[in-house]
């Protein structure tokens, strides 16, 4: 396995290395002015420096707070509505058309409305994150729940489980692979959206740091928050995948 994986890994690192090399070459041969494109080492040094800077960490923390608050709301509402739509005809005929209308609407367009209603502080950002992460979670839950083998539910009902309880202990449980996939997508979306919201209108958070740096033409400082949020997204994604594998120990779907 390692024998086969090693050259593949090398092949995969190649394009990333090429991009970094090109970046380095552009700056060291003076083909790009540092005001437009700072050398990669300068960006890296600044990143390491900032990660030890309490003010920068405070901004990061603010971003994370908004991210997780919005994501948690999206999970709660999305899973609940998805399950309801899958289990009741009435709920389905109400939820389905609304989702059909709202899912393809760019949620970011609602941001001004959120600002107007909820103010410029945390709440509007959290609402936007929740609105954006909601639909993939809701749809994944619904699709997962309706494709649960009905005989699995029947087996539980025959053993004396009530329908209401079976919805949580059997349907949701059996749909977990799909639900968690939806949540993982929602998590990465949350990460991206919180940053964009902070860029558009905020006085703190990582996104604000980027905009602030661009206004004062501190090019290096523009890259640092962008890389930080990307790394956050990457590690949250990886962490969630690890959690998913643990939760899905018995499922055939989990690799």
């Amino acid at each position, binding site marked *: 396995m390692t024998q086969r994986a090693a050259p593949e890994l090398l092949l995969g690192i190649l*394009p990333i290395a090429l991009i970094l090399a090109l970046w380095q070459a552009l700056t060291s041969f003076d083909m790009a002015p540092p005001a437009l494109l700072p050398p990669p080492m300068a960006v890296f040094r600044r990143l390491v420096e900032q990660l030890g800077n309490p003010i920068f960490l405070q901004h990061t923390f603010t971003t994370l707070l908004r991210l997780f608050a919005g994501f948690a709301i999206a999970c709660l509402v999305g899973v609940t509505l998805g399950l309801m739509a899958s289990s009741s005809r009435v709920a389905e005929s109400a939820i389905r058309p609304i989702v*059909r209308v709202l899912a393809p*609407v*760019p949620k*970011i367009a609602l941001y001004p409305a959120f600002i107007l209603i909820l103010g410029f502080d945390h709440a509007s950002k959290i609402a936007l994150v929740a609105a954006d992460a909601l639909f993939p979670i809701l749809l994944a839950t619904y699709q997962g729940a309706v494709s649960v083998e009905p005989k699995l539910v029947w087996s539980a009902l025959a053993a004396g489980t009530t329908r209401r309880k079976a919805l949580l202990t059997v349907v949701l449980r059996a749909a977990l692979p799909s639900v968690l996939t939806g949540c993982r997508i929602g998590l990465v979306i949350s990460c991206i959206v919180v940053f964009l919201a902070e860029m558009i209108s905020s006085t703190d958070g990582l996104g604000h740091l*980027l905009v602030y740096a661009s206004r004062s033409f501190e090019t290096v400082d523009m890259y640092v928050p962008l890389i930080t949020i990307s790394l956050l997204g*990457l590690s949250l994604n990886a962490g969630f995948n690890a959690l998913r594998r643990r939760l899905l120990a018995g499922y055939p779907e989990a690799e």
Partner: protein
Amino acid sequence: MRRWSAIPGLPPLLACAGLLVLWELAARGAHIDGLPPAHQALKQVPAILLDRESLFHIADSVRRMLIGFALALAFAIPVGLAMGRSGKVAAFFNPLLMVIYPVPKAALMPIIMLWLGVGDASKTLVIFLGVSLPLIYHSYQGARAVEEKMLWSASAMGMNGLQRMMRIVFPASLPEIFVGLRTGLVLALITMVTSEMIARQAGVGNILFNSLDMALYDRVYAMIVIIGILGFVLDVAFERIRAWFVAWADSQHQIAVGTS
């Protein structure tokens, strides 16, 4: 229940009406300056659409969006298909794509604007970047799932590699590619609005925040409605096209989701 919900288009219409009523009631009940009643905002919709300048902005935004989308299409589908049929190509691109995946594409706007200026090029490039990823991913999944035996038969008929790609792999992957296109189209719209909100130069996103700054709240909401309709119409139109192209594949009512 089955009778009315079986009429195509009726449930979404009812959903729209329901949402509007809800909005109207909330606005009347809450009495917030920032939440005008629905009817007041809706009155502004024709005003915006009849205003030459804002119409020009909207058309401009849509044009950029479509160009970015078309460029992504031309680039991402071949890449995705090649990845799906060759382990080496997939191994080459996969880690890079994984790294790019969580980067907020629209957030590149200030940086790209430094390089390319505030014009069309920056915005189109950002849209291109935003759309490419899901397109590559779905083309990749589609090509990977093409049955090996189908390709054996094609080779036996004397097709070479390129012919197999064009005449077998591409059509066989179409259903999955269309899923990617649909996500991509919604994503293009999102990236367009977001990048304009960040750049604050021109376009739909700019109208939104300018109206917000000028406290023209009815106009803000009217603009939101317009963007919402744009998103919904694009999605419905695309679903039609998809259904027509891949009528042979099982029609799954999957709803596109995505964000930049």
